[in-house]
């Protein structure tokens, strides 16, 4: 079992968090990142759902990778992902109904999330199950991290709340402060993701 946390496996998990972040570096999965980050709670739930789905779809595809005929591999991948997405969507509807209403169509659209297909094609099809699973978890968390940062900023400045709780005190509003309406619009999410990419690249450049 010494290979479980070998250097390659660690890298498969840690790389997507920063140096190979799916949103900030590979620029995948932008559409959902713009759509669900108006508040922190849906962003959190979305990040978690995508993490679970990438992790387990990578695991399943990696397990059966030698039996998939390469001509129909995309269909097989889609079936696996679609099954997982349906499960997640049902769980959300059962236990987190208000969030699933907020996320609406975007849970179903995880199927088309570029991160998923990208990781399955690029990694899970050619690696054994355990590294594939780690890679899936890492990419999911890398995606979730950016979503949480963007979601927190947008909710804080767009509505003055975090997870629905008032954070900016009333006296600030009485002094003339107003919530920024543009933060709630998807256009601002794009600019914020740009800022995240900017900050992340400058930090990486300095540490090199």
């Amino acid at each position, binding site marked *: 079992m010494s290979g479980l946390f070998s250097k390659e496996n660690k890298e498969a998990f840690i790389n997507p968090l920063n140096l190979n972040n799916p949103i900030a570096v590979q620029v995948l999965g932008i559409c959902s990142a713009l759509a669900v980050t108006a508040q922190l709670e849906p962003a959190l739930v979305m990040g978690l759902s995508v993490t679970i789905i990438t992790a387990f779809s990578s695991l399943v595809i990696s397990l059966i990778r030698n039996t998939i005929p390469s001509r129909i591999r995309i269909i097989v991948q889609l079936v696996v992902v679609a099954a997982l997405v349906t499960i997640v969507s049902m769980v959300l509807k059962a236990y987190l109904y208000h969030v699933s209403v907020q996320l609406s169509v975007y849970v179903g659209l995880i199927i088309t999330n570029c991160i998923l297909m990208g990781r399955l094609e690029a990694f899970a099809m050619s690696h054994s199950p355990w590294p594939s699973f780690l890679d899936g978890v890492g990419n999911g968390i890398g995606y979730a991290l950016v979503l949480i940062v963007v979601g927190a900023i947008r909710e804080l400045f767009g509505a003055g709340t975090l997870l629905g709780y008032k954070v900016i005190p009333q006296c600030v509003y009485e002094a*003339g402060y*107003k919530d*920024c*309406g543009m*933060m709630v*619009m998807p256009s601002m999410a794009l*600019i914020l993701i*740009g800022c995240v990419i900017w900050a992340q690249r400058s930090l990486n450049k300095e540490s090199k």
Partner: protein
Amino acid sequence: MKALRNLFDKMRPSFEDGGKLHMFRSVFDGFETFLFVSPTASAQGTHIHDCMDSKRLMTFVIIALMPAMLFGMYNVGYQHFTLINQEASFFEMFFFGFLAVLPKIVVSYAVGLGIEFTVAQWKKEEIQEGFLVSGMIIPMIIPVTTPLWMLALATAFSVIFAKEVFGGTGYNIFNVALITRAFLFFSYPQAMTGDSIWVAEADGLTAATPLATPAAFDLNNSITGLIPGCIGETSVIAIAIGAVILLFTGVASWKTMVSVFIGGAITACLFNCVGSTAASQMPWYAHLCVGGFCFGAVFMATDPVTSARTETGKWIYGFLIGVIAICVRVMGGYPEGMMLAILAMNMFAPLIDYFVVDSNIKKRKNRTTK
């Protein structure tokens, strides 16, 4: 002037490499070239050596903006005293407006230039003077009731995200002053529109009153500019003086200016034929007089950086600005369309230029092959 020159010469060594105040090199440089002709000239190659650098060009625009600015200050006072039904002399009105507008100019310049100076110092570049004009236009296109912190935030946003990320002055795709206004417009719609603010404090959004209630339109007042509106854009006469200065000095293109008005007038006439709502029945000259149409056509559409550069392109660019502005006014959900029209066409200006150049290449190719 001589004393000032000597002062600069005396101060220069401390700002040069190794000097005590090297940190503020870019600031020193910026002020020196603003006051005097730049002391450095290219040593080799063929370059045009002319005092008419972009700083002088910007100064002309500032001068052209002055009539509208001064009238705007007077109008702020006039609207205020009319609303509270109080008699006031001309100077009282002007002074009231002056005190209301001055903090906005100061904030806009302080924030914008602060960011520009910092970036210039950081990137070890010369200070670019593009903000001289933007900083003057920004206070003129917002309602006088806009809180100063909103103005500061919006200015910072637009200077960083509309200008510096693209590489600074001359590289921006969108007009910086308009991005400031767009940011305010979409971020704080309640502060930029709505009835309460311009009734309570006697000033309002661009064209809010005449455009919201077309029946209240009064041609004489719209031309002199004694209507509620943003600080600098109510008076057609003052803007016309500015337009003459710009055209006489050759800073702005008459083609862009004229074609904006043509586009607007034709679209308004078309709406008159087919429309049935009050906004679509507004006569074409009314459309051109109220709101930010004149100001946008003269000072914003002609921005040399963001507008089309080819001569044919300028006609297309200006015409479409006029068309879109009137369409947004009549059919869109917003009372004023000039800002959105110019921003939209800023985006398409490079494309227009591309097709104009391309068609010219094709034409000449055809000529040689025949």
